[in-house]
Structure formats: C-alpha cells, structure tokens
C-alpha cells in the first residue's frame, strides 16, 4: 500500500509535505518573532503555502485568489499600517510576567489535546471526490445560484466595512 517515492502518488505526497512545511514555517515565523514586520513576512510565506495547498487540491482559482488577496492586499495593508504607526520598541521588549506564560501553556495544551482527541476519535468522512471541474464558469454559477445568500451577505459586510472606514476617516479629519 505504500507508494514508492518516484511514483506519481509518492511525488504528490512529497509536494504536499513541502507545501505543509512552507505553511508551518511561515506560521511559526509569524508568531515567534518580536519584530512586527518579520511577522507579516512570515504570514505572507504562510499564505503562499496555503495557496500552494489549494493548487495541489485542484482549485487553481482559489489559489490565485489567495495570492492576490491575502499576500498582495492583506499582508501589504498590514505592513503598511505597521509602517505608519511606529511600533513602540520599549513596549515590545517588556518582559511578560510568569503567569501569562503558564496560562498560555495551559490554553495551548488544552486546545492541542482537544484537536488531537477529535482527530483520533472522530468519524472521518470518505475522501471527497471531485465535485466539478473547478472552472471559473462553475464557480461563478454556483456563487450566483447555490451560494447567492452567502455572496450577498459578504458584500453587505464589505460595504459596512467601507462605510465604517470612511466615517472613521472623516471624524479624524474634523478632530484636527
């Protein structure tokens, strides 16, 4: 049952592992560095890994969107915000009290135990077969028929965000 390394399945497995590795390394960089800009870079690496996973799972459209929106827009916006608001170096260097470290360990342990328990004991669904060809046409059609409610709700959320940011910006200008 174990496929050899150089069969198509084996190579696919290696690629999958590499993509997982890229995602994990990005996530670890994002959480473990003290400098905010490095965290954002780590986040970008993590998103690239996730995009690769989507591509691996035969949905190139989602992969490209992941790159375009998350790396190209979200990460850039976060980095931009960091540059505009100079982070307080002294505050970053402040030592955490021992209590918060213990609390973090307990919370992390609980979460990982729960996830591990669920993963080991849960009923796994059969591997998903390909629903459709993943083409742009199918995605567009299902967005406007089956998932139209979600689609509209998301656009309302975005509209609210835009209006909110405009309101905030105007208030700030008047305050000066």
């Amino acid at each position, binding site marked *: 049952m174990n496929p050899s390394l150089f069969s198509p399945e084996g190579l696919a497995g290696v690629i999958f592992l590499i993509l997982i590795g890229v995602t994990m390394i990005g996530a670890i960089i994002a959480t473990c560095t003290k400098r905010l800009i490095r965290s954002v870079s780590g986040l970008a690496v993590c998103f690239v890994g996730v995009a690769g996973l989507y591509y691996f799972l035969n949905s*190139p459209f989602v992969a490209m969107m992941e790159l375009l929106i998350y*790396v*190209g827009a979200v990460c850039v916006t976060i980095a*931009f915000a960091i*540059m505009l608001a100079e982070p307080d170096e002294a505050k970053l260097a402040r030592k955490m009290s021992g209590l918060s470290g213990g609390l973090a360990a307990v919370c992390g342990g609980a979460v990982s135990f729960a996830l591990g328990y669920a993963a080991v004991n849960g009923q796994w669904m059969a591997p998903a077969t390909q629903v459709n060809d993943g083409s742009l046409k199918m995605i567009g059609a299902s967005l406007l028929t089956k998932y139209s409610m979600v689609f509209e709700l998301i656009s309302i959320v975005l509209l609210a965000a835009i209006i909110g940011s405009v309101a905030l910006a105007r208030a700030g200008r008047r305050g000066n």
Partner: protein
Amino acid sequence: MNELIRLLSYMICIAAFLGLNLAYLGWVERKGAGHIQRRTGPKDVGPYGLLQPLADGLKLMSKQLIVPANADRPLYMCAPILTMVPAVLLFVAIPFGEHLVPREFNFGLLMMFAFASVGGMSILIGGWGSGNKYSLIAGARAVSQNVAYEIPMLITAITIVMITGSMDLNEIVRQQGGFFWNWNVFRLDKSILMPVSFLVFFICSLAETNRTPFDMGECEGELVAGYHTEYGGMGFGLFMMAEYANLVIGCSLTTVLFLGGWQCPFGLFPGPHWFLLKMYFLIWCFVWIRWTYPRTTFWGLLNLSWKYLIPFSLVNLLLTALFIKVF
C-alpha cells in the same frame, strides 16, 4: 517525456530571452535618454556601446555585498530575490505565438495579477529592511501607489474578461483575429469607451512598474534612490532587472489584452514577430514617456488614481455590461 523536453526547452528559452531583454533594455533606455536629451548615451564600450550591459554586469557582480549596520539582515537579503521571482515566473503564461506559449493556463490573466501583487510586498520588505528612513518612505510610497493603481487595472482587465468570456490569455488573443478593428482597443461595439480604457490600462501599467512620471518609489531628487538606496552591487542590479522584467510583462499584457497579441493587423501571417513588434513599440513608448515628462507630485498621483481612474473604470465596467446585455 516529450512534455518534459518541451518544458525544459521553454525554461532555457525564457531564461535567455529574459537575460537578453534585461541587459539590453537598459542599453535602449540609456541610448534613448541620451538622444532625447541631445547626448550620445553609452558609446565607449563596443560599437555603439553595445557591450555596456556586459561591463555593467561585471562591475555589479564584482562589488562587495555590504549589509548596513541598521538593516534587518534576513529581510534585507530576501528583498532583491523576492522582486525577481514573481517577475520571472510570469513569463510562463505569456502567449508569444499561437503555439509558442510555455503553459496555457485557464487562469492566465488572474495569475498575472496574483503574482504581480506579490512584487509590492518585496518593495516594502526592501524599504523596511534597509533600516534607512529614506528607503522606508520610498517603500511606503511605492506600495501605496501600487495598491492604488492595481484597482483600476484590475477593473479594466475585468471588462476585457467580460467581453471575451475567458481568462485564458491565448484565447483572448484568438478572439481578436482578422483585421485590426477586431482588436479589443477598437471594439467600440462592445463598449464605446474602449480606447479610453486602453489608456487607463496603459497609465496603470506605467504606475505599476514604477516608471517616471510615477516613480515615487525612487525619486532621486528627494529620497536619494528610493527603496534601493542601501543596496549595492548585485542587490541593486536585481532591483533594476526586476524593473525591466516588470516592464516587459506589463507591455506584453497590454499587447495581449488590447492590441491583439500575436495577430497581424491585416490578417496575414500572424505570429510571434507581431507580438514582439507591438511589445517593443510599447516599451519604447515607456522610455519615451520617461524622458519626456517630469515627475508628478505624490498627492497628484494618488488623486489621479482614486478620483479619476477608479470612478472611470467603474463606469466603464457598468457600460460594458450594459452594451453586452443590450446588443
């Protein structure tokens, strides 16, 4: 096995094409600048200064790599490589001819924009990683400009997708066959504003590739040399080469979307030569504009995008939808 050989030969050809372009576009730019300003441009190294790019390359490669004391070392080292990678990667989807395309993607157009948007991140990282306030200001400027001009560019590209019904770059070119009035730039029956939207796309690609009049990222008058102030040797060389690679990509994309790619204007002998001819003409226009117009101010640049180009491209989008629905 055939597929493997095909891919390998395409990789070699793209690398050669890219290397040649990156080296000699610099020469073209310097020659063009010289003649526009009534100078001769490079002339000493080789006939007509043709060996100048090689000399420049040797000089850049033989320089010591210095990391400034203030710099964020890993980010500083990563940034030049990161600017180069997406630029090179994008050549995979460009249709040079009907059968001369390394890989035909269903999502070619989307892929172009996806990887091009990664380039902004590398400029930010380079600007921040240098640990120099001028680089930082320049990086922030370059990125706010990239973000601002990406929006009208995307919306204009969406109108093209609505007209052709495909994101496959080769398919978009195929639909512009026959005479030149079938090119998207002249498709007045699809949207009456088509030539103007070509202009919008062209302006946006000027801004996206950080070229004068929009080179806020490296205005040497106020910010020394912008986000690559602290880079010497090949680090600087990579930033320069990425700029030219982005130039080639931007012009190729404009050619494919609006000027009929590899199609001949008169329906005769379509092929890669037409693609290259149109692309190099656009590149020459970029050089021409760079040495003709002065730099704009930063607020003027952002105002142009947010107050004129974005509303215009939105109106154009609605108009195109209307035209497609009505006719």
